C-alpha cells in the first residue's frame, strides 16, 4: 500500500472506522450476500433493473448505491430496517401497490433471506481502490514545491529601466525592462483616434459616436484619457461587456444542451446579476463568494438575499444530461461539472481530471476531488430538473428543485391544494391504465383518431402531471431562480473507483485541494455543505491562484493575450508567464485595492503599454512575432457580440435598454428540438432583437446566427478565451444576411436624412458613423463613383424588371405554420441554389422606407404548447428561417444601402488597431 493511500486511510479513520470494522467482521454476511442475495437479485431483477440491461423506474439493484438511492419512487432499501424498505414491500406482493417481480412471487424463504440481509445492514463487498491511486505522492510533493503557479505571490520590486522617460506607470516599467533586455524598442504611441476606438470597444463593447470621438480628439487636457476612461467605466455598457467575459468563464447558457436540450427559463437572472455586479464593481472576492455560497451568507435585506440566491446560479447553469438512466450518475456528472467550473474558472486548474484517477500532470489526487465532491454532493442542484431515461414532455421538470425568491410565493392557495389532491387521484388511475397497456398488445390498438391506445394513455398521464406541476409550480406563483442550496442530508462522500458513480471506495472528509493548503483556512462546517468554507478558501488572500487567474484574464481582454497564454490552465501543461513579476505585482495590487476589477482595468488602460500603436517593423516581427514582449498593441478582431452591437449602433437602431428577462423564460421545460417550432421561434426572436447581444437568447447548440459565424464562446465548458477564425461563411453573412441588409438600409436612411449635407459630405458622415474616421479624398471620390455607377446599374435592373410586374412586395410566406412569429414577415425570395450567375433574377422588390424595414417584433401572445412530444420522433431537418427582404426600390437608396453595407462588411469595421 502506498504511503499516500495509507495516509489517506489514516486520515479517514474517524469516519471509516465503523465501516472497516464492519467489513472485517462481516465475512459471514458477505458470504451470505454472495451465496443467497446476489444470485437472487441477478435471476429475478437484473433483466429490468441493472446497468447493462434496463433500469425501469430509474432503479438498479446490481449495486448497493443503486438500491440506497433508489428509483423514481425513492430508496429501495433502508439498511437495518426491512419494514421500511420498498424492496421488501414489493416482493411480498401486497394487494395494493407495487408487486415485484411482477409475474412471479418469490418464495417465502427467498423473501426471508432478503429481510435478513437488509436487517443485517445490507452488507455488500467493498470495492478496492486501484493501486495506482495515491502512487504519485512523491512526484506530487516535488511538483507542489516547484511549479510556479501555486507558489505564494512573490513580493516584487518595481524594476529599474534605462529609458526613464518612457513609462507612465509601474506596469510600463515591467514591460519596458523585458523589452530593453531583448534590445527591442516599444513602437510609437497610438493616435488619439485609434485610442478612443480601442478603449471604447475594450471597455464597453461599443463603438464611440462621432461626437465622443471629436470631444476626445480635441481635448488637449493632460487628463483627457483619464476622463474618457472614467466615463466608460461608469457607463452601464461596461458591465454588459465585462459581464459577458465572466459569462464565458461561467459557461453561461439557457438550456441543458446535451442529448435532450431543455430550456432554463430562469437562467437570465444570473446573467443580469453578473452584469449588475460588474457595473457595481462588486469586489471580486465577494463576487465569487456569492456565486459559490450566496445562500449561506448573511443578508441585510430580502432583496440582498434574493440576489445572493441568484448568484448561486453559477453552479446550476451548466450542461446537463437529463436523459441519464441512473440518478447517481446524473448527480455525480453534475457534481463533476460544478467542480470543473469552480476549479478551472476560478483557479485555472483542471481538477475534474482527478475524477477517475490521480491527475496525470498536476498534484491533484483523486482524494482531493472527492473531498470537493462531498461538498457538492451535500448541495441540492436547483436547476428545476431531474434525470430520466427516454423521457418526454415535462418528465424532466422538477419544480421543487427551484429557488423561490420571495416569501409571497409560499402562500398556498387552499383551492389549489384541493385541485392538486383531486388531480393526484386522477393521476393514479391514469398511470394504472398506462401501466396496463404498456407491455400488452392492447396498447397497440388504435383509437378513433388513429393513435395507439398506449400513446393516448401516456399523453393523459403527461397532461395530468403538467396540470399538477402548473398548480404546484413556484415559478407560476412568483419569481424563482436557478441555483443551489444545502441538501437536507449533508455528508462526506466516497471515492468513486475509476470515476464510476456506483463503485464506492473509502469515504473522504470534505475539503479542498491539497495543492493549495493555506494558513488558517476554515475547516468545513460539518452541519453545512461546506460551500461557505470553500468560498473562504477560494478567496483567501493568500490563495495565489484566484488573484493570478483573474488578473490574467483581465490582462488578456485588454492586451490580446494573457501574461499566461493558457488562461484556463495554470497547471503543469499550461503556459508559463511571459512577465511573472508583472503578474504577481498586478495580483497583489488587485487584492490590496479591494479586489476591484474596475480599478485594475483603469490601471491597465492608462498605462503607456496599452496605448501603444499597432505599428510594426520587420525587426520586431522577426524577434518576437507573437508580440509576447508587448512592443506594440496587438490588433484584434471584434468579438461576435461587438460586431453585432456595432452594426446596430451604426445603423442607429441599438436598443440600449436591458430587456426584461429572456425570450426563453416563457417556455415550459420541455425538450427544444433543434428545428422544432419553439427553437425556430427563439431563433427568429434573436434575429429580430435590437438589444445588446449579451441579452440574446443563448440556447446551447442553437446560438443566434448573428453571433455564430464570429466565434462566440463555447457554452459547454469554461472558455476564458475565444477563437478568431477568418472564413468564407463570415463573408457570406456580411453579404447576404437579412440582418445586415436591414442595418445597411438603416444606416443609409440615417445618412440620407442629412438634408443639410451634400453627397460628398454624406459619404464623410457615413465613414464617421461606421468607421469613426473621416475618409481621405480618394476614398470619397471612390465612394461617389461607386454610388453613381450603382445608381445606374440599379436603374437598369429595375427597368428590366418593370414589364414583369414584379414591383409588388414579395409574397408573405410563413416558413412553418406552427411558427409563432411567422405572421407579418416576408420571406427572402431566393430559393433553390440562389445563384445569380449569367441570368440575374430581378431583385425581390418591396416598398422602401419605414414599413419595409421595421423590425419584425415577435408577439407571442399564447403560451407555448405543452403537449408532450415523443422524444423518439425523428428530428425534423432545417427549415429556412423566416426572413424579410430589404431590397429598396429607389435606385439611389439602393446604391446607398449597397455602399453602407460595404462599410459594414469592410475589415476596418471589425478590426481594431
Amino acid at each position, binding site marked *: 500500500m502506498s504511503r499516500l493511500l495509507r495516509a489517506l486511510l489514516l486520515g479517514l479513520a474517524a469516519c471509516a472506522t465503523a465501516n472497516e470494522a464492519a467489513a472485517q467482521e462481516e465475512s459471514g454476511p458477505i458470504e451470505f450476500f454472495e451465496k443467497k442475495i446476489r444470485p437472487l437479485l441477478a435471476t429475478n431483477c437484473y433483466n429490468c433493473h441493472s446497468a447493462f440491461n434496463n433500469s425501469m423506474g430509474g432503479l438498479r439493484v446490481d449495486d448497493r448505491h443503486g438500491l440506497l438511492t433508489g428509483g423514481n419512487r425513492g430508496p429501495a432499501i433502508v439498511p437495518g430496517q426491512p419494514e421500511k424498505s420498498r424492496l421488501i414491500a414489493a416482493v411480498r406482493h401486497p394487494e395494493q401497490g407495487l408487486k415485484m417481480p411482477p409475474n412471479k412471487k418469490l418464495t417465502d424463504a427467498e423473501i426471508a433471506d432478503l429481510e435478513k440481509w437488509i436487517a443485517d445492514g445490507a452488507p455488500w463487498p467493498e470495492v478496492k481502490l486501484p493501486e495506482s491511486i495515491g502512487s504519485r505522492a512523491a512526484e506530487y510533493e516535488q511538483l507542489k514545491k516547484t511549479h510556479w503557479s501555486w507558489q505564494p505571490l512573490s513580493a516584487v520590486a518595481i524594476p529599474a529601466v534605462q529609458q526613464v522617460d518612457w513609462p507612465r506607470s509601474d506596469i510600463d516599467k515591467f514591460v519596458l525592462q523585458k523589452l530593453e533586455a531583448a534590445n527591442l524598442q516599444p513602437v510609437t504611441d497610438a493616435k488619439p483616434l485609434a485610442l478612443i476606438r480601442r478603449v471604447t470597444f475594450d471597455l464597453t463593447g461599443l463603438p464611440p459616436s462621432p461626437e465622443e470621438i471629436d470631444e476626445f480628439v480635441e481635448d488637449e487636457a493632460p487628463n483627457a484619457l483619464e476622463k474618457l476612461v472614467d466615463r466608460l467605466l461608469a457607463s452601464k455598457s461596461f458591465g454588459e461587456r465585462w459581464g459577458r467575459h465572466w459569462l464565458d468563464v461561467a459557461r453561461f447558457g439557457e438550456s441543458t444542451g446535451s442529448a435532450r436540450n431543455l430550456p432554463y427559463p430562469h437562467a437570465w437572472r444570473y446573467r443580469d446579476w453578473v452584469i449588475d455586479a460588474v457595473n457595481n464593481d462588486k469586489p471580486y472576492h465577494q463576487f465569487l463568494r456569492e456565486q459559490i455560497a450566496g445562500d449561506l451568507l448573511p443578508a441585510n435585506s430580502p432583496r440582498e438575499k434574493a440576489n445572493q440566491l441568484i448568484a448561486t446560479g453559477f453552479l446550476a447553469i451548466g450542461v446537463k444530461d437529463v436523459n441519464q438512466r441512473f440518478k447517481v450518475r446524473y448527480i455525480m456528472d453534475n457534481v463533476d461539472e460544478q467542480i470543473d467550473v469552480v476549479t478551472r474558472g476560478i483557479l485555472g486548474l483542471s481538477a475534474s481530471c482527478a475524477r477517475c484517477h490521480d491527475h496525470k500532470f498536476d498534484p491533484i489526487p483523486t482524494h482531493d476531488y472527492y473531498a470537493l465532491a462531498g461538498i457538492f454532493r451535500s448541495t441540492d442542484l436547483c436547476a428545476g430538473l431531474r434525470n430520466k431515461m427516454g423521457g418526454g414532455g415535462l418528465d424532466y421538470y422538477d419544480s421543487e428543485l427551484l429557488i423561490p425568491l420571495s416569501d409571497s410565493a409560499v402562500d398556498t392557495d387552499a383551492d389549489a391544494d384541493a385541485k392538486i389532491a383531486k388531480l393526484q387521484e386522477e393521476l393514479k388511475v391514469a398511470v394504472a391504465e398506462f401501466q396496463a397497456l404498456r407491455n400488452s398488445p392492447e396498447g397497440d390498438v388504435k383509437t378513433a383518431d388513429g393513435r395507439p391506445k398506449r400513446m393516448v394513455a401516456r399523453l393523459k398521464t403527461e397532461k395530468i402531471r403538467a396540470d399538477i406541476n402548473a398548480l404546484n409550480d413556484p415559478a407560476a406563483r412568483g419569481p424563482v431562480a436557478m441555483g443551489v442550496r444545502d441538501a437536507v442530508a449533508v455528508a462526506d462522500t466516497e471515492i468513486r*473507483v475509476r470515476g464510476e458513480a456506483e463503485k464506492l471506495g473509502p469515504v473522504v472528509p470534505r475539503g479542498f485541494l491539497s495543492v493549495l493548503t493555506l494558513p488558517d483556512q476554515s475547516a468545513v462546517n460539518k452541519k453545512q455543505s461546506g460551500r461557505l468554507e470553500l468560498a473562504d478558501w477560494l478567496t483567501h488572500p493568500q490563495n495565489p491562484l484566484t488573484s493570478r487567474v483573474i488578473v490574467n484574464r483581465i490582462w488578456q481582454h485588454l492586451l490580446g493575450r494573457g501574461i499566461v497564454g493558457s488562461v484556463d490552465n495554470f497547471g503543469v501543461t499550461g503556459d508559463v508567464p511571459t512577465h511573472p513579476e508583472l503578474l504577481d505585482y498586478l495580483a497583489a495590487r488587485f487584492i490590496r485595492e479591494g479586489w476591484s476589477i474596475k480599478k485594475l482595468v483603469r490601471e491597465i488602460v492608462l498605462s503607456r503599454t496599452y496605448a501603444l500603436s499597432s505599428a510594426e517593423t520587420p525587426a520586431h516581427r522577426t524577434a518576437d512575432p507573437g508580440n509576447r514582449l508587448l512592443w506594440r498593441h496587438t490588433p484584434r478582431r471584434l468579438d461576435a457580440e461587438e460586431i453585432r452591437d456595432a452594426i446596430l449602433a451604426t445603423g442607429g437602431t441599438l436598443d440600449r435598454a436591458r430587456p426584461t428577462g429572456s425570450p426563453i423564460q416563457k417556455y415550459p421545460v420541455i425538450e427544444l428540438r433543434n428545428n422544432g417550432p419553439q427553437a425556430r421561434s427563439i431563433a427568429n426572436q434573436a434575429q429580430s432583437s435590437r438589444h445588446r447581444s449579451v441579452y440574446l437568447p443563448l440556447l446551447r447548440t442553437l446560438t443566434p446566427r448573428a453571433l455564430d459565424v464570429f466565434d462566440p464562446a463555447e457554452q459547454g465548458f469554461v472558455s476564458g478565451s475565444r477563437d478568431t477564425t477568418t472564413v468564407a461563411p463570415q463573408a457570406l453573412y456580411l453579404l447576404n444576411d437579412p440582418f445586415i441588409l436591414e442595418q445597411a438600409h438603416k444606416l443609409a436612411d440615417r445618412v440620407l436624412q442629412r438634408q443639410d449635407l451634400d453627397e460628398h459630405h454624406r459619404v464623410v458622415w457615413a465613414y464617421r458613423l461606421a468607421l469613426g474616421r473621416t475618409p481621405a479624398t480618394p476614398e470619397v471620390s471612390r465612394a461617389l463613383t461607386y454610388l453613381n455607377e450603382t445608381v445606374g446599374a440599379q436603374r437598369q435592373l429595375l427597368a428590366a424588371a418593370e414589364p414583369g410586374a414584379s414591383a409588388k412586395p414579395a409574397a408573405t410566406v410563413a416558413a412553418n405554420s406552427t411558427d409563432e412569429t411567422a405572421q407579418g414577415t416576408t420571406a427572402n425570395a431566393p430559393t433553390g441554389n440562389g445563384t445569380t450567375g449569367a441570368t440575374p433574377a430581378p431583385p425581390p422588390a418591396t416598398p422602401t422606407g419605414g414599413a419595409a424595414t421595421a423590425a419584425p417584433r415577435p408577439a407571442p401572445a399564447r403560451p407555448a404548447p405543452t403537449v408532450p412530444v415523443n422524444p423518439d420522433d425523428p428530428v425534423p431537418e432545417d427549415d429556412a428561417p423566416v426572413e424579410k427582404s430589404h431590397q429598396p426600390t429607389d435606385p439611389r437608396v439602393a446604391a446607398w444601402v*449597397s455602399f453602407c453595407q460595404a462599410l459594414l462588411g469592410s475589415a476596418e469595421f471589425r478590426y481594431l488597431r
Partner: protein
Amino acid sequence: MTLVTSTNESPVSRRQVLKSAGAGFGYLALAGLLGQQSARAQQAGAVNQPSPVQPKPPHFPAKAKRIIFLFMEGAMSQMDTFEYKARLQAEDGKPGPGGGTLVASKFQFAQHGQTGSWVSELYPNVARHVDKFCFLRGLHTDTPAHPQAVIQLHTGTALAQLTRPSMGAWLLYGLGTENQDLPGYITINPPANFGGTVNYGSAFLPAYYQGTKIGDRGQLPNLAASQPAQLQRRQIDLIQAMNRDLAAKPGAPEQLEGVIQSYELAFRMQSKVPDLLDISKEPQAVQEAYGVKPGPAGSFARQCLMARRLTEAGVRFVEVCQNGWDHHNNLHNGLIANAKATDQPIAALLNDLDQRGLLDETLVLFGSEFGRMPTAQGADGRDHNITGYPMILAGAGVKPGFSYGATDEYGLHAVEGRMHTNDLHATLLALLGLDHEQLTYRYGGRDFRLTDVAGRVVQEIFS
C-alpha cells in the same frame, strides 16, 4: 525535387505582395469602376496575381490528390473492432502484461476477404472492403489525454505554447485546391472541445488556409446571394479596395489576407455550394445505401455522403466526425451504437468512391486520436492506450490488402512498424506529393513543419 513552396517569405513581404495582389478577377471590374483613380489601385493593376489557393505542383508526383478523414473522436476500441488478438481472447480475466486484468472482446471476430483480415461483428459492411485496406497497426502518440492527442493528430504537436497549423491547412498551403469555387478544406461536425477550431485552424499560416466548418445537416447559412451577381461583384470590389487600403496601413491585422480571400471564395461559393451540400439531390438508392436519415442517428451517414460530393467536386481535404468513442464505461452498448452509426456509411462511401473512380485519386483515413487498452476498466470499459493502436488507410497511393506494423500479442504496445503521429503525417504528405521536410513556413525566425523536427515517410505502404 523542385522547391515550389516558399520557405523564407517573411510576413512583411507577404503583406507587400498583398498590397499589390488584388483579388483575382474582381480587380478588373474594380479598376474600371474607379477609373484608375487610386494610385494604389494602379499599382494593383500591374500585378494580377492568382489566388493563393490556386493548385500548386507537388514536390514530386503525387499518388493521391485528396484526403477524406473519418475521425472517430474519443478513441475507438481497436480490441473490439479491427485488432484481433488470439492471446487476448484466450486469456480473458488473466493479469495483463502491463498490469490490470485482460478482457477479451465480447464481440465475435471473423476473417474477411482474400486477405483474411480480422474484423469483428460490429463492422459487417466495412468488413466487405478489407481487401482495399492498408492497416497501420503500430501507431503511437505522446499524450494519453484527449485534448492534447486530438490536437496532436490534427496539428502534429500538442505543445500549448504555440498553436500549430492543422494538417488540412498545411495541405492547402502546399498544394492549393482544385476547385476555386469551394473551400479547399472542409470539416463537417467537428468537436467543439479538444482544441475546437485549433484542429482545423491555420495558426500562423495565413487565414485562407483554415478549414471551413459545416454542420452535419449541411448547414451553411447565407449562401443565397442577396442581389444580382454584377451588383454584388461591384460591391465586393469596393469592400476589397477598402480592405487593401487597410492592408497598406501600419499595424494592419494579420488576418487581412484571409478576409480578402474569404470574400472572393464566398462570392464563388454562392453559386456552387448550395447544390453540393444538398444530399437530397442524390438518387434515393444512393441515400439508402449510405443509410441517410434525419436526426442524430443519421448524422454520420449524411456526413459521409456530403464528403463524397465535396471530394468529387475537388475539395482537397474533407474531415467528418463521429464522436462519443470514449468508452471508459458503457463499452459494450456504446460500441454497438457507434458502430451502427458508422458501419453502413463508411462501407457505402468506399463503394461509392470506388464505383466513381474516385478511390484512385482519394485517400481515405479512418481512425482515432489513440486506442484503448486490452485490459478492463471497471466492469464495462477500457482506458486510453497511446502505445499501440491502429488506423486504416484505403484508396489512392497505398497498397490494398496490406498491413504494416503490429502490436504485441495483447495489443498493448506497438512492436513492429512503429509509427508516431509525425510519421503518419510525413507519410500522408508524401502520398499527396509533398516532402514534409520541405513544406515549411517561416515564423518568428524559424521554419516550421507539420512534422516539427521528426517524421519518417513509411514508403513500405506505397502502392
